[in-house]
């Protein structure tokens, strides 16, 4: 044992009712390195990390931290032993301030009655933010933050523990390029301080940029560990999915039809201003922009979830009055929302029930549900999207994040909309599934659907879109054709450094 | 009426009008609503008298608050039917301190002599009277089932106590079942149904009020056992008298609700005017059986 491991997890096994989530998995992390943990959705990455931090107890296995066996019984125990974690699902306390969220559980206080030193709390947060160059008001209410800012707070929080080992479970799934770079800068400086990091992501390019070693899991089993720079992308994918997977972006040529959706001068005070765009049949339009640039709000306003102050919407050339999501659905629209937990999932319900919500009235005959037809259609879609679940009756809360996302896509596919809005459609989705979803989007376009994709992942925008609309601070800064669109141009527009003249 | 608000707003002033505060324990209670009728009818016959009725919902604390409100309002006299007789002396004392005459009605307690007057009788007597008659009908022996009202209510405690005092006197009688049906007919019926299933021999069901007794009668009737069991109630409500007439309810006890209401208000008005009043105004209980039921049916008409 010449190597200096900060953490060794050996033969970890964990079974949930009906699911063997981890089967004899090992993970060895060298001190002062960034260790990537990769695997498909449901491979068991988060479960392994939750065992490490003390949320789950393993059925079998051993954890050695700094050469000593670690028996984690509670999260507090793990935190005290110098392990902290950025969780995959954001977990803010909405009605508390940023500072209170960050120091939750370890507020600076006087011994008497646990009297909290509020000033110091804020001061410490401010110092933390200054050190990490994060620009958020410590006194802001958590609920008022954008998702991206919430994610930054979570990152800052995990770091504020001064742990020797930080787990980051998909920290970049909710933030844009800019914050990603910021995070990487933070990670590099942490590394210099000797902190070790376990980094979970589905974004391949991040691997090369930031990690030193990679461990791959598949179906709850350990596949292997290798230095990142020795690993080719194809090799990694091979390890993850157990087969070759070539050519993720293979955008087929699709004839573009007539205008399906036209939005004119849409305005919502304080959110976005005078946004106009068109989407044609068979066309995929990408929306790029930094966090909070207003893309989500635009989609929500078109879809009737938010109320715009001004502007007109035309569907297939006819003026449409859309006051609610129901109206939008009647006009043949669909919206996959960006925050699946908040606005997508019915957590206590089964996978099937989650899939049929939009279409359930189409499965009604004489007032009764045609259950066999529902089952068949859902089964078909589940297979098409390779949703990994023991059965369609499984409660969706037990699925991995990626599989939950696929079930939500299935919800809208069942509805078969003419115009489909996808807000961050592959957030938290593994490479294999991502390829499947991209192919699906292409397939939809081929069938003459008009598609709008909002994404903060540059490769996704560039790979999918026929046209890219770039937003900045609630204004449309420009529109680029597939040929014109490059990472640099998009960034320039998105940061407001360049303003395209309106066409 | 609700649109009387304008006039009643002047309740506190000294326009020559006599304002009486009536603190009743429970408007949901049927018997008490007849008592209130007695007050209302009497009030109508009086000129320049206004009565404010408040409902304590069987909550002594609430009643105390209401008495305090009356004192704040400077009413001319208070009529009170105490929620319970232990906390009542304090309310009497508060009224005394404020120099407002207070007339206690229906429920008697130690220290009631500190009040301006008492109108009514002694609760425990109704339980005794009821049980004595049942004992007579049973020939001094038999199995008794006692159906209690809401546990802890003044009437429940005193009536059951009266029942048990009598039973103790007869060695041949014993309480085989005891439960609560919370003054409620539906609950009395369910309790009786369950008792019938218990297989215990029951010779008489003695209920704290008529509503529960009627519930018991209905359950017994449905089981075809009404002829084997004597059912007794208290209150002699119009409904109950109907059952007495039909021979289904063997015993009930009439407590002159209207008489007590009227008497209480009458005394209070006198006291408010500064006239001298009797300290104790007894209104006795009366036993009702099939023999004399018609007399009481007339009283309600």
């Amino acid at each position: 044992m010449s190597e200096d491991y900060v953490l060794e997890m050996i033969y970890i096994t964990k079974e949930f009712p009906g699911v063997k989530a981890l089967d004899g998995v090992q993970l060895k992390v060298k001190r002062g390195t960034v260790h990537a943990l990769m695997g498909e959705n449901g491979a068991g990455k988060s479960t392994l990390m939750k065992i490490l931090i003390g949320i789950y107890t393993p059925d079998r296995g051993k954890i050695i931290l700094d050469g000593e066996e670690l028996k984690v019984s509670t999260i507090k125990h793990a935190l005290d032993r110098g392990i902290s974690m950025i969780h995959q699902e954001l977990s803010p306390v909405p009605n508390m301030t940023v500072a209170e969220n960050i120091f939750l559980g370890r507020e600076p206080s006087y011994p008497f009655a646990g009297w909290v030193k509020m000033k110091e709390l804020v001061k410490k947060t401010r110092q933390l933010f200054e050190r990490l160059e994060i620009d958020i008001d410590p006194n802001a209410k958590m609920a008022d933050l954008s998702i991206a800012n919430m994610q930054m707070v979570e990152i800052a929080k995990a770091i504020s523990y001064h742990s020797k080992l930080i787990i980051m479970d998909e920290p970049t799934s909710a933030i844009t390029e800019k914050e990603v770079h910021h995070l990487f800068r933070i990670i590099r400086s942490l590394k210099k301080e000797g902190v070790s990091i376990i980094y979970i992501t589905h974004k391949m390019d991040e691997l090369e940029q930031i990690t030193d070693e990679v461990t791959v899991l598949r179906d709850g089993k350990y596949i292997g560990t290798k230095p990142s720079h020795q690993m080719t992308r194809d090799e990694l994918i091979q390890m993850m999915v157990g087969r070759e997977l070539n050519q993720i972006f293979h955008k087929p040529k699709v004839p573009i039809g007539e205008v399906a959706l036209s939005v004119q001068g849409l305005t919502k005070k304080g959110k976005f201003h005078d946004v106009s765009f068109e989407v044609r049949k068979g066309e995929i339009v990408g929306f790029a922009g930094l966090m909070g640039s207003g893309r989500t709000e635009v989609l929500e306003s078109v879809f009737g979830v938010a109320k715009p102050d001004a502007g007109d919407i035309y569907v297939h050339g006819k003026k449409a009055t859309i006051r609610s999501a129901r109206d939008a659905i009647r006009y043949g629209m669909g919206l996959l929302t960006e925050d699946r937990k908040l606005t997508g999932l019915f957590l206590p319900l089964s996978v099937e029930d989650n899939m049929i919500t939009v279409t359930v009235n189409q499965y009604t005959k004489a007032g009764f549900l045609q259950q066999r037809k529902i089952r068949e259609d859902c089964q078909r879609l589940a297979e098409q999207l390779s949703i990994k679940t023991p059965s369609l009756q499984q409660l969706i809360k037990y699925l991995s994040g990626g599989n939950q996302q696929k079930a939500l896509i299935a919800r809208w596919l069942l509805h078969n909309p003419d115009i489909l809005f996808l807000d961050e459609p592959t957030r938290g989705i593994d490479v294999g599934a991502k390829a499947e979803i991209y192919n699906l989007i292409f397939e939809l376009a081929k069938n003459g659907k008009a598609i709008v994709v909002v994404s903060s992942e540059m490769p996704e925008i560039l790979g999918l879109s026929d046209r890219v609309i770039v937003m900045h601070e609630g204004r449309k800064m420009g529109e680029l054709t597939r040929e014109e669109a490059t990472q640099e141009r998009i960034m320039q527009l998105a940061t407001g450094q360049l303003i395209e003249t309106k066409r | 009426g609700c649109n009387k608000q304008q006039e009643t707003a002047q309740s506190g002033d000294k326009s020559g009008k006599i304002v009486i505060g009536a603190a009743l324990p429970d408007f949901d209670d049927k018997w008490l609503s007849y008592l209130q009728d007695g007050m209302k009818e009497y009030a109508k016959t009086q000129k320049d008298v206004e009565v404010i009725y408040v409902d304590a919902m069987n909550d002594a604390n609430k009643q105390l608050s209401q008495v305090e409100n009356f004192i704040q309002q400077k009413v001319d006299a208070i009529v009170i039917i105490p929620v319970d007789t232990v906390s009542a002396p304090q309310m009497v004392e508060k009224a005394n301190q404020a120099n407002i005459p207070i007339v206690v009605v229906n429920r008697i307690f130690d220290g009631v002599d500190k009040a301006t007057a008492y109108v009514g009788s002694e609760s425990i007597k109704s339980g005794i009277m009821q049980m004595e008659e049942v004992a007579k009908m049973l020939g001094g022996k038999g199995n008794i089932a006692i159906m209690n009202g809401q546990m802890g209510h003044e009437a429940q405690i005193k009536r059951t106590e009266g029942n048990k005092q009598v039973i103790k006197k007869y060695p041949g009688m014993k309480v085989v079942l005891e439960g609560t049906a919370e003054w409620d007919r539906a609950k009395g019926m369910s309790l009786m149904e369950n008792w019938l299933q218990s297989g215990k021999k029951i010779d008489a069901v003695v209920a704290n009020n008529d509503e529960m007794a009627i519930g018991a009668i209905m359950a017994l009737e449905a089981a075809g056992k009404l002829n084997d069991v004597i059912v007794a109630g208290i209150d002699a409500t119009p409904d109950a008298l109907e059952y007495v007439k039909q021979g289904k309810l063997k015993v009930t006890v009439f407590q002159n609700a209207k008489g007590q209401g009227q008497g209480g208000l009458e005394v209070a008005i006198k006291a408010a005017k500064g006239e001298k009043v009797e300290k104790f105004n007894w209104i006795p209980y009366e036993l009702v059986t099939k023999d004399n039921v018609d007399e009481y049916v007339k009283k309600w008409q």
Partner: protein
Amino acid sequence: MESQVSVTNKREKAGVSSTATSKDKLYRFFDRYGMLMILIGLVILMSILSPTFFTTGNLLNIVRQMSVVGIVAIGVTIVIITTGIDLSSGSVIALVSVVAASFAHPDTYPVIVPILIGLGLGLLTGVINGTIISKANIAPFIVTLGMMTAARGAALLFSDGRPIGNLSPSFLWIGQGDVLGIPVPILIFALVGVISYILLNKTKFGKYVYAIGGNEQAAVIAGVNVDKYKIFVYGYAGLLSGLAGVILTSRISSGQPTAGMMYELDAIAAAVIGGTSLAGGIGTIGGTIVGALIIGVMNNGLDLLNVSPYWQQILKGVIITVAVFIDSRKNRKS
């Protein structure tokens, strides 16, 4: 591309198929039928303690007594699944009781009139609840608490605080009659159970109810007319309270302004004992019926055993908590 799809397919089959071991099956069985087991256990216990407990007569008795609360509990269950609550049931029963009774005197109206008036009045209170809750967006707790107070006041006002007797024999049949030896209230209870089961499991109404309870915001975005269905849900609960009021009135041969006191708590308890989650999205009709029967068996058994009223209350509190505790074991995560 072709080959990829087929590979995916294979992988999928492996994922979806039956990984369920026999241990899992046992687990699921308990997960589903845990409370039923507890009910059966309670019945066995009572049968041992009291020889007369396990007789047809007594068992019918228990179900008949529980049918009023049981019907209310079914409506309340659906309300709770949408994350709501209905505290007004007991008072609505009282209001319906006095109003229906006043139309049920012999030789006045045909029996259908008081029934329809009772049901209609129940429905109305429910629709009022639902409309305020959904349109004015006020917490169901407050709205139905308001209705609880107001309906009780209205019942007392309408009847001047007195019972309304002298009801026609045909009206009395609803609560007191029987068909082939089975009491009518039990038949109605069973019918309500079946209809509600179908509503909740076989129609889109049911799917929407669960969706609203599971995540209201998501339901809105999925195009569910949340307001409308909430009004339906509270309306249905009100309708069932109205039905319960009619049965109760007929059963006790009189309209009672004080009827139904605290029934809402019994009904909610039945639902929760039966596995309905107050956090919404979870609950079944079958569970609620089991929950209602547990309460019924407990009431009846304690009466049969002649447990003193004071001890009955203490034991009821303990039994309910223990039953839910035993049942909750099954949901424990390792």
